[in-house]
């Protein structure tokens, strides 16, 4: 037991998940092992996912979906919703579960877009409020000045690093900064709204410096993060035309930009941290917290510092596992240079990152979206004075999911993510090693990496809330 009482509150998660039982843990881990060995024996010998075989869909359909009216409409909707979120955050109730801002930003968008991106492609792009504002300002400038705005050249070595660091910062704000230090979202609506305004200023400034589209590809956290998940899906836009492609194939060329590996590692690390802080890391966090609080730091500062340390440890741990795997592959005869290996297998972690998201936030998403589309929609400020759509008295049915249903989705997500990750890694290996035997040998290393992540994921689920 902690000497100091940790200030913890579960701002959004009214119902938290039960830890998965030991027998399901064993099932999950066994299936992972069996599937992995099975995968080795049926493996194909030539790369199948290096080319995405993109085929355009009908021009009319594509034109309606990507045309100017749709762009204007989606952009305006994005800006409007950002406005509603900021306004609710600043003017609405302090009660986190009653304020539109928190659920909309941290659940509906943050968890919803990865899901929709995998299924439908990069759906965030048209709704991106900052891109819409940036393009509107750019258009106005061009109309007034009679020339397109000039931009600085973006230093290509930076690649996606700004987005990766931004992702860590975002999750830090979400789960570390909030003084309630709670599960899921610990930050207050007011702080969230202020942070959104700061981020808007920063993003518009960067877009002015480097150009709207350039910044969306490299530095804008949400574009890069949601865009990463959209690479797994079967729909993508090329040269302004919507098309269908081989699922997973687009991912194989996603990580060629510097900083991509950091992005996907940050994604796994942040989800791990959030899943572990109340379970697997609880003891360690309490000890570190006690020690820091004992040195005279304030309780809030101690908790933030402790959580920051553990968040960074997660990042280092995930990176270490992956880099050991890469080092191992390098020892296999005929291996490409280390640098190429390191970025060449980064995309194989995207499915793991997605599986972690589903495993940790599936139930929160299902419960909180009921709130989103009932009382939060009709009464965004949470003042109990408005009822815009007549749904203000609605509530969350926590019986919608049984504990068993949640467990199966969690374990299922991890197992499927594992298989997809292995598939991508094997395919890349057959492309890098001309000799199939060597390619297969290199994959023992990636297999070890994937099994580590999947079993760590299962372990986190089994230890949550301990």
């Amino acid at each position, binding site marked *: 037991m*902690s000497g100091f009482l940790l200030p913890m509150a579960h701002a959004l998660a009214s119902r938290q998940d*039960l830890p998965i*039982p030991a027998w399901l843990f064993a099932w999950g881990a066994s299936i992972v092992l069996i599937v992995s060995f099975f995968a080795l024996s049926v493996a194909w010998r030539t790369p199948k996912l290096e080319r995405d075989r993109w085929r355009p869909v009908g021009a009319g359909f594509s034109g309606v979906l990507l045309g100017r009216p749709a762009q204007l409409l989606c952009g305006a909707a994005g800006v409007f919703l950002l406005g509603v979120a900021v306004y609710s955050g600043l003017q609405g109730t302090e009660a986190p579960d009653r304020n539109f801002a928190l659920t909309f930003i941290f659940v509906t968008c943050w968890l919803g877009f990865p899901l929709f991106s995998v299924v439908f492609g990069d759906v965030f792009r048209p709704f991106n409020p900052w891109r819409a504002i940036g393009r509107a300002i750019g258009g106005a400038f061009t109309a007034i000045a009679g020339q397109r705005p000039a931009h600085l050249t973006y230093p290509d070595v930076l690649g996606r690093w700004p987005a990766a660091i931004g992702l860590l910062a975002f999750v830090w704000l979400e789960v570390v900064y909030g003084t309630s230090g709670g599960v899921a979202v610990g930050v207050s609506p007011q702080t969230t709204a202020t942070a959104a305004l700061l981020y808007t200023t920063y993003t518009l400034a960067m877009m002015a410096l480097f150009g709207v589209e350039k910044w969306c590809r490299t530095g804008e956290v949400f574009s890069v993060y949601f865009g990463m998940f959209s690479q797994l899906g079967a729909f993508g836009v090329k040269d302004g035309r919507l098309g269908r492609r081989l699922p997973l194939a687009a991912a194989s060329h996603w990580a060629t930009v510097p900083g991509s590996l950091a992005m996907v590692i940050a994604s796994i690390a942040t989800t791990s941290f959030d899943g572990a802080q109340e379970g697997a890391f609880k003891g360690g966090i309490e000890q570190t917290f006690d020690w820091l609080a004992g040195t005279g730091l304030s309780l809030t500062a101690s908790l933030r510092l402790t959580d920051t340390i553990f968040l960074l440890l997660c990042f280092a741990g995930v990176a270490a596992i992956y880099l050991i795997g890469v080092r191992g592959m390098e020892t296999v005869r005929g291996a490409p240079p280390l640098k190429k290996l390191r970025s060449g297998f980064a995309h194989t972690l995207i499915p793991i990152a997605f599986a972690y998201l589903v495993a940790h936030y599936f139930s929160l998403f299902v419960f909180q979206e009921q709130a989103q589309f009932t009382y939060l929609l009709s009464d965004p400020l949470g003042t109990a004075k408005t009822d815009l759509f007549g749904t203000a008295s609605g509530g969350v049915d926590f019986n919608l999911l049984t504990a068993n249903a949640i467990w199966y989705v969690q374990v299922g997500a991890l197992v499927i993510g594992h298989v997809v990750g292995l598939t991508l890694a094997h395919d890349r290996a057959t492309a890098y090693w001309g000799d199939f035997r060597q390619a297969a040998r290199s994959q023992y290393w990636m297999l070890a990496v994937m099994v580590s992540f999947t079993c760590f994921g299962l372990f986190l689920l089994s230890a949550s809330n301990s």
Partner: protein
Amino acid sequence: MNSNITRVALGIAAVAVAVLLLIVLKDDGSGGEETTSTPTTTKSTSGTTKSPPTGNEIPTIVVKGGKPVGGVRDLSFEEGDRIRFEVESDVSDEIHVHGYDLMKDVEAGGKVSFDFPATIEGVFEAELEERKQPIAELTVNP
């Protein structure tokens, strides 16, 4: 050909290990399942009337200076049980049981009892609403 046989052998070994693990662990994990009491059919979660203790000791959470004595209390129940606990507080506040969304006011130096059926599975928090101070964590197992 040879390597294929090795692979198959490895696969079989993995299955064997997995099955063994499963048998060993399953016994452990599902032991409690047989003893699950019949689920209640009561839908109402507003039945928070005081009821006399029935055999089992009703846990009491003592709040001193706005904090639970001995830290946040962990209470575990099976689905279908009745969730019973009492809160003794030296400060006045509102006690909120999340998920079940039950609220009860407590006076300074007063005592309130909760008694309601465990109809929702999961982990839920009971907190002093004004102080945002958790006092208990209720676990409802299926």
